[in-house]
């Protein structure tokens, strides 16, 4: 087991701690696409919005702190801006249709032994693989 894998395992464990914190103290699944979608939806009630905004603020703040403490964790992007806008749009629609993303289905759903989350996770990894196969892994072409 090399050091990159160990670091990934450690980072993953922290994600597990974070998801557990939210589940135990707020009784919410840490599915980021759903939390974010609810935070920006005008129909969300104020009580429901506040914890979502706080979670998203924690994520963004964490990014800012990491930028100063360990800037090497942020890698260069894969595609140009128009492609990234399209990628974001696909992620937005796809996660709202299927009710979860890598965190919601991949971490929380699988941890709850949800069979539907397993179906979703295998599906998005499969189409991700196909997309990279068609478009290339990006970077310097």
């Amino acid at each position: 087991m090399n050091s990159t894998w160990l670091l990934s395992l450690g980072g993953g464990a922290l994600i597990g701690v974070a998801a557990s914190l939210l589940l135990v103290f707020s009784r919410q699944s840490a599915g980021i696409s759903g939390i974010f979608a609810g935070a920006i939806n005008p129909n969300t009630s104020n009580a429901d919005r506040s914890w979502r905004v706080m979670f998203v603020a924690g994520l963004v703040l964490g990014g800012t702190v990491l930028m100063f403490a360990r800037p090497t964790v942020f890698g260069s992007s894969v595609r140009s801006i128009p492609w990234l806008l399209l990628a974001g749009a696909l992620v937005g629609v796809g996660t709202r249709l299927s009710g979860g993303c890598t965190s919601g289905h991949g971490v929380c759903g699988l941890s709850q032994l949800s069979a539907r989350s397993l179906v979703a996770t295998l599906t998005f990894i499969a189409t991700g693989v196909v997309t990279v196969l068609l478009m290339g892994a990006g970077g310097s072409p």
Partner: protein
Amino acid sequence: MKTDSFKKLAPLLSGFVFAIGLGLGGMTQPLKVTAFLDLFGHWDPSLMFVMGGAIMVHMPVALWLRKRDAVTGTSVAVEGCGVVAPAVNQRLFDFKLVGGAAVFGAGWGLGGFCPGPGLVSLGAGSSSAVAFVVGMAVAMALFAKVTVPHAKYRLPNWLRLPTR
């Protein structure tokens, strides 16, 4: 009192720890994500350990809490992101689940970002993350506009058709 204020701050702390985990784990490097998905090229399996590590820690907690809640009668949002209420008779496959996940995977492979790392990288001031998050937010807002919020348009009981 003390537990009360901690409860209020728990989402902020959770988001913060989540971000550190995503960053250290390698999820905020789009090229690492596409390398993980490059199964038939130069495959980098390390991101598998991120998911593995997260599940190893979270699963015992989630299952313990579910067991405890079953005893006390409390309910937790179970499926996915918790927006979808855990229905009793949900099928294993349906168009929304599989089609939606397929579209999400395509976007993930295209940009190298999923929602969490996109927001974390936004906090780091990455311009590509700004583009990704703008695309995601606009799509989510449009999606919310075209889908009918069930609670708002529910017919009164006496008008509803009998269900089988």
